[in-house]
């Protein structure tokens, strides 16, 4: 549909900072993390949020990195609520003291997504790369529930924790969560780098599905979401409901992207909210137009009946695995590149070392 005008966006992911006290080896943040000096300031974020609301954004996800690293977080939240955005805070909980929690609730945070690494404290701290992380997250959950804020617990599933779903469910219940989101690792950024160590086996996956079904049948108060392991599926995920169709992302340095992983596609021109309005980015930027609709598709997608269902899958995954973002997502069984996925899946059946390379910033001295 070349030339067709897209609908206004519904949501924006504001990556307020890439700074983070944790070092999860499964982190989907890019390898090239943005340093503090390059971050948008308070006024710039508030302006982007106002522009986003004017453009049609209703849901604002404040994330990162760790958004609590921004001392102006409550100010940004207050501004977003004044603009009448629905404000969702996505956090590791590290640094969520009762004082900070109170300020954020006052400012108008409407929902909190708190990530946990695992149900097992030692394993959780090992993945997060910080002793005491797990305990501090439990304290953060207490802060959130005491404030009466709705709580979703997010757990990224991988080889090292996927066998503990029943314990994770129990922990989420004990923490007073309204929802639990169990999402298999998406292989972007640091997770792609650590992929061989993160990929579960087929047997782990069937046990996981059974555990989720069992927990759903048993637990009436906790709603459980489950995002399946992409590589083990027959068809790709309907990534982002299509390229630049419903959401946009603004990175800490102001770069606007159709999805948080899109910076890997290095052929796309970079567009920044510092010099272009969000409206013109959404409707006109080359990077947003690149894979909108279906006109960019080639075989097998272009003649496939599923192209309006999955939009050919993920452009970033196609690029990362095949070198060309116009290929079908190689997860698709109709893709000529599916063998790449099959090899990785087969490889995961063999034992793998569990050491994860921790997510970290480049040393401050390193040139950009």
């Amino acid at each position, binding site marked *: 549909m070349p030339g067709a005008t897209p609908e206004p966006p519904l949501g924006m992911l504001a990556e307020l900072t890439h700074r983070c006290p944790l070092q999860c080896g499964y982190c989907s943040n890019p390898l090239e993390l943005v340093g503090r000096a390059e971050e948008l300031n308070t006024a710039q974020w508030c302006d982007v949020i106002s522009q986003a609301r*004017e453009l049609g954004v*209703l*849901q604002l996800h404040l994330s990162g990195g760790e958004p609590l690293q921004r001392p102006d977080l409550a100010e940004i939240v207050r501004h977003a609520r004044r603009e009448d955005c629905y404000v969702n805070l996505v956090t590791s909980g590290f640094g969520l003291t009762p004082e900070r929690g109170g300020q954020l609730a006052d400012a108008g945070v409407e929902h909190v997504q708190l990530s946990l690494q695992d149900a097992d404290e030692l394993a959780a701290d090992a993945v997060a790369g910080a002793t005491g992380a797990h305990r501090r997250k439990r304290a953060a959950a207490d802060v959130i529930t005491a404030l009466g804020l709705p709580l979703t617990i997010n757990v990224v599933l991988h080889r090292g924790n996927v066998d503990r779903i029943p314990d994770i469910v129990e922990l989420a219940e004990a923490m007073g969560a309204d*929802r639990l989101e169990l999402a298999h690792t998406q292989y972007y950024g640091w997770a792609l780098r650590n992929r061989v160590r993160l990929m579960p086996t087929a047997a782990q996956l069937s046990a996981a599905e059974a555990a989720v079904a069992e927990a759903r049948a048993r637990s009436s108060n906790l709603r459980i979401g489950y995002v399946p392991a992409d590589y083990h599926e027959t068809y790709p995920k309907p990534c982002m409901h299509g390229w630049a169709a419903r959401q946009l992302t603004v990175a800490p340095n102001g770069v606007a992207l159709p999805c948080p992983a899109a910076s890997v596609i290095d052929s796309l021109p970079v567009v920044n909210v510092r010099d272009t309005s969000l409206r013109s980015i959404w409707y006109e930027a080359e990077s947003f137009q690149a894979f909108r609709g279906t006109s960019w598709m080639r075989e097998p997608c272009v003649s496939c009946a599923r192209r309006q269902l999955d939009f050919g899958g993920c452009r970033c995954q196609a690029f990362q695995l095949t070198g060309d973002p116009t290929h079908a997502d190689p997860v698709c069984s109709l893709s000529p590149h599916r063998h790449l996925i099959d090899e990785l899946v087969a490889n995961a059946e063999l034992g793998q070392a569990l050491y994860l390379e921790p997510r970290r910033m480049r040393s401050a001295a390193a040139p950009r």
Partner: protein
Amino acid sequence: MNPPADARPRLSRGTRLSFDRVRHAHVLLYPEGVLFPNQTAIDVLRRCDGSNTVAAIADDLRHDYRAVELTDIAELLTQLSARGLLELDSN
């Protein structure tokens, strides 16, 4: 599975009905997304404040929509509650 007529539905925590001045439309905002309710749903949702019973909501709406039946409203409430947007328990 339909709610009892004396249940007092209310929006779940983290769910709110709002008016989008950009789209000029009512929107139901909740943690995972956005819904654009139709006019009947808007009128029902507005009354889901934990004080009105299902029966009272149905009675109230019959003034505006003669065709609306208690069962239609109950069905809508059941669907919304299955998605976690509404709480039906009468406590």
